[in-house]
């Protein structure tokens, strides 16, 4: 087991930055997700850690040892590829045994280790088969077994569940998490699926356009996004973001009669701005409130999500008009076109600078955010 440290690591392909200089320290036994939209540089980052891609700048430390210019085979890492990359001409058993044979391990040790991981992943009945005959989930298990068999210092996984269907993904997600808990192995996991990242990781590295946007626990990136990108990207739908002007203890948004409260902890931070801010709140931060309520609008669409309903509310008119998402009771009898008023929990409101797009007054997150365990996040 090992720590992983990236110091100003960057990669350029030709004249384009695939990854701009980034710092990241991963503790021993930690499960870290690299999360971001397609093409943001997640795979490139992972491949640099593995040594399959040379860095353009910076240094990579594995267990405090500088491995920047070491071969992948010198780094003692295991890599799980998106499309498994099993050896097609070898049986499942030969695939799993391959890393041990490559190390010149003794035969009885190989047999013992293979039997162990095969047990762990419950693929004993597949040992004689060729990879191409297996289902996607089984191929993924074999790929995991091949990675596990050697007890590497760290696991690197590049969208290992990307090619599976939704149901299997959830099963495998739980299995990988279980394996991680059992082995306590340092793991870097690449995904573009935020639900997966939320569910699995200790920490998430949110990336976009070759840059790290935020590094934090699932609860942090969910409740305290560092900037507008993270606020929009995390959660489905993302945070409601409304342009507004500070007016005393409230922010005026989306035209007349709509205001968002400013919690006491933010007042000093907001005082330094020119008055223009972007106010943000999650769909579950709004509570529908009969006829009172500091905001109101017309129901534009209603999505049934099973355990809850998501209301799309059209708020304001003209320039400030926008759609706000609100979570409501699954039994609530809202109809499209009817008016609705709601209040926003002051503890759950966040503010951003419209120019720099950065969060204002970060680090003064409400107790609600800090205490929330990640299991309650997302859906």
């Amino acid at each position, binding site marked *: 087991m090992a720590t992983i440290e990236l110091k100003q690591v960057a990669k350029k392909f030709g004249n384009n930055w695939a990854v701009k200089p980034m710092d990241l320290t991963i503790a021993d036994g930690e499960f870290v997700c690299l999360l971001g939209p397609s093409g943001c540089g997640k795979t490139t980052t992972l491949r640099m850690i*593995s*040594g*399959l891609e040379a860095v353009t700048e910076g240094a990579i430390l594995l267990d405090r040892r500088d491995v920047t210019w070491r*071969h*992948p*085979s010198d780094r003692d*890492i*295991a*890599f799980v*590829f998106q*499309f498994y*990359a*099993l*050896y*097609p*001409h*070898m049986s499942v058993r030969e695939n799993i045994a*391959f*890393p041990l*044979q*490559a*190390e010149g391990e003794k035969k009885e040790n190989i047999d013992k280790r293979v039997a162990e991981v095969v047990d762990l992943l419950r693929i004993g009945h597949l040992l004689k088969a*060729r990879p191409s005959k297996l289902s996607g989930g089984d191929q993924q298990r074999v790929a995991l077994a*091949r990675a596990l068999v*050697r007890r590497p210092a760290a696991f690197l996984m590049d969208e290992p569940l990307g090619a599976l269907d939704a149901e299997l993904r959830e099963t495998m997600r739980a299995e990988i998490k279980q394996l991680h808990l059992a082995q306590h192995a340092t793991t870097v996991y690449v995904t573009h699926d935020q639900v997966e990242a939320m569910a699995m990781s200790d920490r998430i590295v949110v990336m976009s356009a070759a840059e790290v946007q935020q590094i934090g626990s699932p609860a942090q990136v969910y409740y305290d996004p560092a900037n507008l990108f993270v606020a929009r990207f995390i959660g489905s739908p993302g945070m409601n973001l409304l342009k507004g002007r500070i007016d005393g203890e409230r922010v005026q948004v989306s035209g007349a009669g709509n205001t968002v409260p400013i919690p006491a902890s933010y007042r000093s931070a907001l005082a330094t701005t020119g008055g223009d801010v972007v106010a943000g709140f999650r769909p579950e931060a709004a509570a529908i409130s009969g006829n009172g309520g500091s905001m109101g609008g017309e129901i534009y669409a209603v999505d049934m999500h099973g355990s809850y309903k998501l209301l799309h509310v059209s708020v304001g008119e003209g320039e400030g008009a926008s759609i706000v998402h609100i979570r409501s009771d699954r039994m609530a009898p809202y109809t499209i076109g009817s008016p609705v008023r709601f209040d926003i929990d002051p503890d759950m409101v966040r503010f951003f600078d419209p120019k720099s797009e950065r969060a204002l007054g970060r680090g003064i997150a409400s107790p609600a955010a800090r205490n929330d365990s990640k299991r309650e996040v997302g859906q």
Partner: protein
Amino acid sequence: MFVRAGVRTPTHNNCDNRAACGVMTEVRTDPTIAERVAASTPEPLARRVRGLSDRAIAWAFIGPTVGLLLAINIFPLLWTVYLSFTNYRANRPNEEILWIGTRNYERVLTDPDIWAAMQATAHFVVWTIVLQTVLGFGLAWLIDRKFRGSAFWTTIILIPMMLSSAVVGNFWKFLYQPQIGLFNYVVSFFTGIDPSSFDMIGSVTLAPWAIVIVDTWMWTPYVMLICLAGLRSIPDYIYEAAEVDRASPWRQFWSITLPMALPFIMLAVLFRGIENFKMFDLVVQLTGGGPGSITELTSINLKREAFEKWRTGYSSALAVILFVAVFGLANIYVKALNRVKQR
């Protein structure tokens, strides 16, 4: 596409929930082949086609091909088998044809000349395959490194294969000239041997190697191409996986490169084996089977027996024996190839 011939039957049923059970059920029975053919045929022809059964239509389609195949492939084969049991001579068509049983076969199998030819063929086939496979795979492996100018070198290497074998035979004759030949000059340059002291074509010991060298020179590029296709078919991520699995380059070669390219290599061996078993033109051009009959391969021998000595029955028996041998070997080989490919 088949709508014209298809039959659509709207059926109404009394069902209130439109979304759940649908208002209209479409039943489409598949049209027969005859109907489909008729639908895409001009009207006068279509009338003739329409009544036929699927089986009749199928026969109408494959009939001409089967007829042609029978006429120019199967019939001559059977006729050869028949002739091999007779004393027929094609240059004496008026003579009575006698059924002589297996006498031709006995004669072929006890003829030392035939065995000498078989031996020459085996020497030629085995050595060309060994050399071409080793060199072809080696070249492919080098070219696959994708160094600068590898495309240029690929083109250069492919040139011999593009020449006509008659031309190749002819100019290698000049290259092999003891006095003025480039081959002898190069050998003497590197070894110090007097160039006129050996004659590749004229010497009984060297001539079998002379034809092996020329064929290897000409066809190694072909084996290289097939091996290159095999190497290129191995995706990069397999090597990356092997890299993180800590396999040494040596192990990567033996555990991944070679086994994964093996079906391609085997295919190249099959093609070259078949080609060289029936090798004729290049060797005739180069040595004419000589000196003596040292490089007289079975195909050359067969041609002499059939069209110079006109022993048609006898040469038919030889042809049948060769056919059975090659067919049997090729079959066994293809089975092995399929087993390798199935992995």
